[in-house]
Structure formats: C-alpha cells, structure tokens
C-alpha cells in the first residue's frame, strides 16, 4: 500500500521522474524523505525567521531531483513550521512534525525558546535533530546537560558559537582602540544575561578589564538613569550589553540625553544589533556600534548542498527580496547543508539510528564554515569535551554608515575565532554620541 502511494507521488513529481530516467542505471528503487524545519516566523524573534522563505526555496531547488543514497533515489520534502518565538508552541509544532508528518530528520534554528523544546521533543521521540543559533552552552545546559557529566543527549546535535567566541572577539577587538579598559555592562535578568554575567565577565576580568556591573535589570525596563549615572561616574569607556532590542534603544537614547555616550569609545552590543534594521532604527547614534556576526557574505565557505558561495547567497537574497543581507541567511542554509550530508552519510536515511550514528562523526562544509562533530568544545580547561556540539565563530566588527549602498553595513575588524574570514578594517572609536 505504502509502495503504491510512493509510486503515484513519484509519477506526479515531474523533476523526480526525469531524474529517475536519467539515473536509471544506478537507482533501481525509490523512496521519500521528510525534513522538518522549525524557526520563529512570528513573535519577538521573528527577525530570525525572515530569510527563511528564500533559504527554504534554495534548499527545495537543490533537493528537487532527490537524493541518491545506497542505490535508492529518495524524493525530499521540507516541512516548515513556525515556532512563534514561544517554547510551548515550539514543542507543539515539533510533536506534530514527529507524530503526524513522521519526519525523518528535524532541523531547528534561532533562540532557546524555539530550538530547545524542538530538541527536547526529538530526544524524547528518538528522531535525529540538528540545530543552530542558540549559544551552545544555553542549548546544552538549558536542557539539563551538566558540566562534568556525560552528555544525556543521544538524538540531538548542535553547532553554534559560545562564550569563548565572544571572549575572543572582544579581546581582539577592544585593544584596537585605546581606552581605560573600564567596561560598563548591562546584562539583564534573563537566561542570556545571567549566563553571560557568570561566564564572560570573569574571563574579561582575567584579561585585564575592569567590569562595572550595576546588576541585573528586568527586560522591559523603561528608565536607565541609575545605571547611566554609575557609568558616567566610573568613566566606562567601553560599554557591553546583551539586551532585548527595544531595551537597548531606550537605554542608548537616554545615555545620549544624559551625556554618557560621549564617554564611550567602544559600544559593544550583542543579541541586539544582529540585523541592520535594529541599528538603522537608532540613527544617527547607531553608527559605529560594535557587534559580532556568525555569518556574512564575505565568509570564505560554500554551501555544500547548493554550491553557492556566501557572496552569491547574500547577493541572491538582496536581489530576490530587495532587502539587505542578514547573518541568519548563512546559518539557516547551513542547516540544510548538514542535513544533506548526514542523510547521505547514513547509508539509509529511513533508519533513524543510522542517521544518528552518522551525525557523531560527520564532517561537512557549510555556508558558516567547516563543521566536524568529532571535534567538540568544552566548558574550559580540565573539563570533558561536550559531544553533540560543534562550536562556530563569532567575528567582531562594527556597523558603519557609508560602507556600502545600504544605510549601514557591518565591517569585520577581527577574525580570532576563524582566521579564514577576511578582515576589512580596524575598529574605529565610537563618535556618534
């Protein structure tokens, strides 16, 4: 019965039929693979899901003639779902993809609220899952992994930057501008803020920076005069924050009104300032803010699934959408590069255990870089490597006006966590305040 359905579907799909004619010598049988893809398309994290329709279009095109694995030609279907930036919805759509759609492989991206529940659902159901764009510590510890204990995760795999990459980027970026090495920090009282306070701040201290931390504040705070007064009194020439975007906009305008921004030589923002609109919205005081990227069109890697260079990916998105490139493009496409590679490496993509085993040692070129799951990061010297995880770079740089045809563009100023990424310029002191 199932075979009949497969044949009918194969007959309807014209490119698939064409492919099976052309490769009839090697492919004797056919099958179908379903890939689930969960990202935030609506809700506060919707900016991450914006390039999805373009990226999924590229992936569908690359998969349209199917995948030939172990003498069988499989048609590939991508089923995309909106995690709505909410954990409960993320879990619900993941369970739906697993139980109703019966996906063979799950992909998930962008923020712990979307990714972690999807990973958890896959772990529980025994479906291989690959995810990215959640700092890997937040993905691993946030789901119940413990430092120093063996990994509890058998089905879920992840690749992303972590605290170490932020530390490397900051300590290579900040010495480019002379300062008093006093860092005013605004880390909110949320999962990211507290993780950064616990892990990054001590590393920065050991690198010779003085951290002025007024303490955690609640997301959604509307007045920051207490913190601003403290930063002015301490003359913090470096400023670092991991806020939700509207809070930073409120803070930075008040900092300008109350005279703090004229003290700032480096304004280093993370979590906000990922996408151009978040910085253009601050104009003119957004010009010159320092940030970090996990992908840019100057990345020297190719998407192994589509064969596209990073430049082609950026240009393609800009011409098809009319919008400026953003770093999520490379990350989203890389998920399909990994999916393609692991399905091929498994020998039998319908056998979930074989796909999982292939993940453990997979090495693949993606648009964000060469990923190799036999090389895993750890929680610092002396701790065991964390299987399931590959760490990827964060490259430091600066948002600048007049760098391209767009109102503001990201200029890469250091490449400590991936020396293959070309450096375009030196960090310039912040002068817009």
């Amino acid at each position, binding site marked *: 019965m199932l075979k009949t359905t497969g044949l009918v579907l194969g007959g309807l799909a014209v490119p698939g039929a064409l492919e099976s004619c052309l490769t009839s010598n090697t492919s004797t049988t056919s099958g179908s693979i379903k890939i689930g893809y969960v990202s935030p398309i*609506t*809700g*506060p994290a*919707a*900016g991450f*899901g*914006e390039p999805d329709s373009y990226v999924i279009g590229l992936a569908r095109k690359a998969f349209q003639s199917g995948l030939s694995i172990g003498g069988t030609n499989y048609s590939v279907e991508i089923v995309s779902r909106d995690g709505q930036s909410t954990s409960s919805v993320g879990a619900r759509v993941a369970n739906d993809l697993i139980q109703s759609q019966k996906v063979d492989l799950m992909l998930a991206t962008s923020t712990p609220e979307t990714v972690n529940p999807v990973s958890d659902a896959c772990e529980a159901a025994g479906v291989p899952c690959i995810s990215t764009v959640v700092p890997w510590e937040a993905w691993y510890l946030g789901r119940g992994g413990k430092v120093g204990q063996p990994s509890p995760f058998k089905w879920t795999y992840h690749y992303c930057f972590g605290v170490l990459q932020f530390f490397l980027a900051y300590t290579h970026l900040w010495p480019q501008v002379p300062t008093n090495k006093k860092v005013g920090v605004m880390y909110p*009282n949320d999962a990211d803020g507290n993780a950064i306070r616990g892990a990054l701040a001590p590393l920065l201290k050991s690198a010779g920076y003085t951290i002025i931390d*007024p*303490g*955690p*504040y*609640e997301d*959604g*705070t*509307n*007045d*920051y*005069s*207490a*913190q601003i*007064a403290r930063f002015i009194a301490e003359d913090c020439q470096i400023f670092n924050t991991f806020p939700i*975007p*509207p*809070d930073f*906009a*409120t803070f930075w*305008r*008040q900092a*300008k*009104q*109350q*005279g703090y921004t004229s003290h700032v030589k480096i304004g280093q923002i993370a979590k906000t300032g990922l*996408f151009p*609109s*978040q910085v253009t*919205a*601050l*104009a*003119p*005081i957004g010009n010159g803010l320092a940030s970090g990227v996990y992908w840019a069109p100057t990345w020297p890697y190719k998407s192994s699934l589509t064969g596209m260079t990073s430049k082609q990916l950026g240009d393609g998105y800009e011409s098809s959408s009319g919008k400026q490139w953003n770093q999520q493009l490379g990350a989203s496409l890389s998920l399909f590069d990994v999916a393609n590679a692991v399905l091929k490496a498994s020998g039998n993509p319908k056998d979930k255990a074989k796909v999982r085993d292939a993940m453990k040692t997979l090495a693949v070129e993606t648009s964000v870089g060469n990923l190799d799951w036999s090389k895993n990061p750890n929680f610092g010297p002396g701790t065991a490597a964390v299987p399931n995880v590959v760490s990827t770079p964060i490259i430091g740089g600066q948002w600048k006006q007049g760098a391209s045809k767009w109102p503001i563009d990201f200029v890469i100023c250091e490449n400590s966590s991936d020396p293959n990424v070309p450096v375009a310029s030196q960090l310039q002191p912040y002068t817009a305040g």
Partner: protein
Amino acid sequence: MTILNAILQGIFLGAFYAVLACGLSIMFGVMRIINLAHGDVAVLGAYIVLVIVDRTGVSAFVAFLIALPVMVVLGYALHFSVLERSLRAGILTPLLATFGLSIVIQNLLQLAFSPDVHSLGGSAGAVTTSSWQVTGGLSVSALGVLVLVTAVVVFGALQLLLSNTRLGWMMRATAEDADAAELVGINSRAVYASATALAVVIAALGGLFLGIRSVFDPVSGPTQLIFAFEAVVIGGMGSLWGTLLGGIALGIAQTLGAQIHPQFAVLAGHLLFLAVLVARFGGARVVLRTAR
C-alpha cells in the same frame, strides 16, 4: 542629587505611562471595557506615523497630525465592528474580543511591515537626544519635558471636554447610567463610539512617544500595556487626573527602585500597584471575595 535626578526622570517616565494609559482610562470610565488591544492600537498608530514619514519625509510630529483623522476613523470602525457587538454579550466578552483583536493587529502588522524594528527617533529631530545639563548629576531631557507638557495638555483638554462641552456631559451621563441617559434622549451608541475614537487617538499619541523613546516592532504593544494598566489602577479606575498622577507615581517608583538596585526598578512599580490595589479594596480578602 542622584535621588533628585531619579525623581525627575521618574516624572518624565510617568508622564509617558500616563499618555499610554489615558485611552484605557477613558474606555474603562465610559464603557467599563478593559481594552487588552490598547497597546497594539498604540503601536498601530506608530506604524501609521512611520508610513507617513517614509512617504512624505515630514517630521514625526507633523506626520502624527496627518494621522489624526485616520485614527479617528479607525476608532469609530473599531467600535462599530468589534466593541459594540461584544458589549451586548456581557462583561467578559469585550475582554476576550480585545484579546483576540490584539493578536489580529500584531499579525496584520507583521504581514504588512515584516518583523523589522523601526523607530520614529530619527524623524523627530534633535528632541530625541538633546537635553539640558543642569548640574553634573541632573539632566533634563528635551523629550522628557515634551512628553510631560503634552500629558498635562491632553489631560487638561479632556477635563475641559468633560466639564464644558455637550459631548462631555453626555459621556459623563452615559458613564453614570447608560439606560437612564437613553431615557433622557442621549444616544449612548454614539457616545460610546466617540469615547473609543478619543481613546484610539490618544493611544496613537502614546505610540508616537514610544517610537521616539525607543524602537517598536509588531509585537511591542503588550509590554507597554501592563504599565499603562497599572497607572490606571494606581490612579483609581476611570478617574482622569488620577491616571496622570498614577502614571507619575508608577514612574517615580520605578526610578527610585532602580536607585536601590536595577533589579528593583520594575518590581517597585509592581509593588506600588499591589499596595494600592489592596489598600483601595480594603485588604486582600475583599479582593478575593469580590473576584468570586
């Protein structure tokens, strides 16, 4: 000096809350509706201003004046399409209807404008970032003064409207007892619609200030709604000047709380809200009993 500065910034912040809360207060006072979509209506107003700025290149303030008639029409449309029908179905239905409306507005905005963040700060001119440095630790921001003056003018104008105009008298009569007002020939349907239109226009003003103070995206509404709601309750449900004072009390509580520890900023506001709630209704037991 830092305490003085905290109080000053608290007053500015509170005036912003009061502008956001004003429309909520009007709708509750006249119709006994708690509009859960109020924050989203404010954000919708900000988007309309944004579109006018983008199309014509005028300043955000001029664009707001152009947007006013649009907001009036939207207010009437909102009333006749959603609120009036739900009002007929009892006290709980408007709450549910506006909750649904909130989700609809957010998703329509995302369809139309993408999830990108926007700001009106750039198009508002120098007022966004300029300030007077009184002494080292005391700064008076131009935007803070502008919001405070606007709040006082808006609340003053509303007071004049309510006490000196025919529409104001009809509103007060309808608020007291809609059925009795009908008996003396007041068209409560029209009065309700005017109140909604007024609330929507003032919500858009709140959206304008939100867009100048910070950035907004399609889901920015609910975060601000909670503070507006607290301002209304602190000032006394349905009391107009109370809402202004309630907003300012909330703002000062937050900035003074931040002086103790940044984490207490939002918490101090919530505690004030809770204290007022308990005090006004004569203790938690009464609150629970009436809730039942």
